[in-house]
C-alpha cells in the first residue's frame, strides 16, 4: 500500500496516459497571476518506493517489492502460451509466434527502421521543446511582464487539442518530418511551460528574501535560487512531455500515413497480420518503459537532494 502511495501519479507506466496530472498545474496558470503566494505542490515527484529500513523476511520483502508484478506478467505469458498449445486461436496468436515474428522483423524487416525514424523525429521535437518550454514557463513565473504578454496565447493554444491542430500542420507543412517535428514540439511544449511556470512560482518567500539580503542580481537570483527551486517541477513537466510524445509517436504515423511506427502498425492491422501487429505494439510498450525508466534515473540523479527534504527515506 505504502508503495502504491509512493509511486508518482504521473506518466510512469509504459502506456502513457493523456497528460496525467497536468491539470493541477494548469489550473494555477488559469487563475493565478504571479503573486507572492506559494502554489501548492502540484505533483508527486521522484519514483520508486523508499528502501525498507526494517529487516524483513525474504518472502515479505518479495511481496512488498515489484517482484510480484513481474511474476504476474510472466504468468500471463505462460498461461497464454500453454493455452495456445491446447487450442490455437489465430486472432490472439501465441507468445512464441509473436516472438519469432518480432525477431524476424527486427533483424530483416521494417520494424527497426520505421521505429528509428519515429524516435528520431520525436527526439528532435523533444530536444527543441525542452529549452523553449522551460524558458517560456519559467520567465512567465518570474516576470509579470512576460506573464502578461504570453499567458493569453499559452492558455488558448494549450487548451486546443493537438488532434485539432494536426490538420493545420499537415496543410501547411506537409506530411514529412518537418510537420512531425512541429507536432512533437507543440505537444511537448505545454506540459513544460505549465510545470516550469508552477515551479518558478513556487520559490518560497524566505528564499527570495535570502537572495535579496545576499544582494544577488536579478540574473543571479534566477540562476542560483529560482531555477534550482523550480527544477523538480520542471522535471515533472519533461516527463509529461515525454508521455505525450509517446502517444503522438504512434498516432502521427497513422494519421499522416506514410512512415513511422504508427504507419507500420496500421499496415499490419490492415493486412490482418496479428503477429506483426502485436510485435510492434509490444516494442512500442518496451520503448516507452525504457525511456521512462531512463528518465526516472536521470531525475533521481538531478534531484538527489530532494530525498533529504521530503518524506521519503
Amino acid at each position, binding site marked *: 500500500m505504502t508503495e502504491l502511495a509512493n509511486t508518482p501519479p504521473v506518466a510512469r507506466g509504459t502506456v502513457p496516459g493523456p497528460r496525467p496530472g497536468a491539470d493541477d498545474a494548469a489550473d494555477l496558470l488559469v487563475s493565478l497571476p504571479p503573486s507572492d503566494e506559494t502554489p501548492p505542490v502540484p505533483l508527486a515527484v521522484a519514483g520508486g518506493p523508499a528502501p525498507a529500513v526494517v529487516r524483513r523476511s525474504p518472502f515479505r520483502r518479495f511481496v512488498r517489492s515489484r517482484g510480484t508484478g513481474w511474476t504476474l506478467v510472466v504468468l500471463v505469458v505462460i498461461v497464454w502460451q500453454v493455452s495456445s498449445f491446447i487450442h490455437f486461436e489465430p486472432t490472439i496468436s501465441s507468445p512464441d509466434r509473436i516472438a519469432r515474428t518480432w525477431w524476424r522483423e527486427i533483424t530483416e524487416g521494417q520494424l527497426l527502421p520505421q521505429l528509428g525514424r519515429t524516435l528520431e523525429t520525436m527526439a528532435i521535437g523533444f530536444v527543441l521543446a525542452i529549452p523553449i518550454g522551460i524558458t517560456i514557463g519559467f520567465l512567465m513565473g518570474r516576470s509579470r511582464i512576460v506573464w502578461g504578454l504570453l499567458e493569453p496565447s499559452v492558455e488558448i493554444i494549450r487548451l486546443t487539442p493537438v488532434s485539432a491542430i494536426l490538420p493545420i500542420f499537415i496543410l501547411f507543412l506537409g506530411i514529412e518530418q518537418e510537420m512531425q517535428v512541429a507536432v512533437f514540439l507543440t505537444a511537448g511544449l505545454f506540459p513544460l511551460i505549465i510545470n516550469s511556470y508552477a515551479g518558478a512560482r513556487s520559490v518560497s518567500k524566505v528564499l527570495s*528574501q535570502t537572495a535579496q539580503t*545576499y544582494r544577488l542580481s536579478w540574473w543571479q537570483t534566477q540562476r542560483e535560487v529560482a531555477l534550482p527551486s523550480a527544477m523538480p517541477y520542471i522535471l515533472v513537466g519533461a516527463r509529461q512531455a515525454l508521455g505525450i510524445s509517446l502517444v503522438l509517436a504512434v498516432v502521427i504515423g497513422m494519421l499522416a500515413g506514410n512512415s513511422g511506427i504508427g504507419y507500420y502498425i496500421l499496415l499490419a492491422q490492415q493486412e490482418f497480420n496479428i503477429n506483426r501487429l502485436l510485435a510492434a505494439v509490444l516494442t512500442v510498450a518496451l520503448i516507452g518503459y525504457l525511456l521512462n525508466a531512463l528518465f526516472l534515473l536521470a531525475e533521481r540523479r538531478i*534531484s538527489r537532494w530532494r530525498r533529504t527534504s521530503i518524506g521519503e527515506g
Partner: protein
Amino acid sequence: MTAPAAPATAPTPTPTPTPTGSVPVTDGHIVVDSVGKDYVALDGHVVHGLQPVSLSIEKGAFVSVVGRSGCGKSTFLRLVAGLEDLTTGSITIGAERVSGPPDSVRYVFQNYGESLLPWRTVGDNVRFGLRHGHGPRRAHGRTAEDQLIEQHLAEVGLHGTFSRYPGELSGGMQQRVAIARALAASPDVLLLDEPFSAVDALSRGTLQELILRIWQERGLTVLFVTHDIEEALFLSQRVIVLRPQGAGVQRDAAVDIPYPRDQVDFREDERYLALRRDVLGLVLQVEREAS
C-alpha cells in the same frame, strides 16, 4: 560554579575589532529615526506592523529586542535589513542610509530551515555566503575557498558536514549552517530572528555561547530578536521591549553586567534578578491591561 565571578567594577567590554586589517570597516553604527511600518492586509485594513521607533545602536553592541508575538520584532529586523520599505522615518547604518539590503548586514531568518538552499550541500551553502559577501574575504582558487568554508563551519561547530545536505541535519545544525553562511559574508551587522526558539534547552545554551564568542571575536553589531526575556538579558548589553501590536518601544534597559557571563552564575547575579523582575513585571502589567 568553577567560573570566576566577574569583577563587579568591570566596564562594558569594548569588543575587539575584526583582526583582518584589510577589512574596510563600514561601521556597524545603526541609527533608527522614528521608523514605522504599516501593512495593508488583503482585506484592505491597515495593520500597524511597527509604530514609530527611534533608537541609536552603537557599533559593536549586542542588543536584544523582546516582546510578545505580533509586536513587530520581525518587522523591525526586516526594516533594518532593507527588505521592506519604511512607512515613516529613516534608518542609517554607518554612513549609509538604508534603501534596499545593505552589503554590511546579514539576516538569519526566523524560519532558518527554509532559508538554506536545500539542493546545495552545507559547504556550498556557506560558499553562497562567501561569494555573495562583501569583498575582502573572497578566496582565490577553489581549494583555498574550500578551506575557508571549512573554517567557517568549524567556527560554528560543524566539523565534517561539508558534503551533507541541509535536509540531513537537525534543526539546531541547520541553524548553525545559516549562521555560518551569514558570517561567511563578513557582515558588520548580524540580525538574528528568534534563532534558538526551536532548539532544546541544552543546545540553546551552547548556541548562546557560540553567538557571544563570535560577536566578541568579530566585533559585530548584533540585533537579536527573542521572546525569551531571560535569554535576552543573558546575551545582551541592552534589551529593548516592544509594546504589543506594533505600538513601539516600551522599555530600553541597559544590562550592565560584564562578560564573560556564566550560564549558571549569571542567573544568580542580583543585578540580573533585579532587571528580570523589572522587565517581566512591566511586560506582565501591560499584558494584564490589554486583557
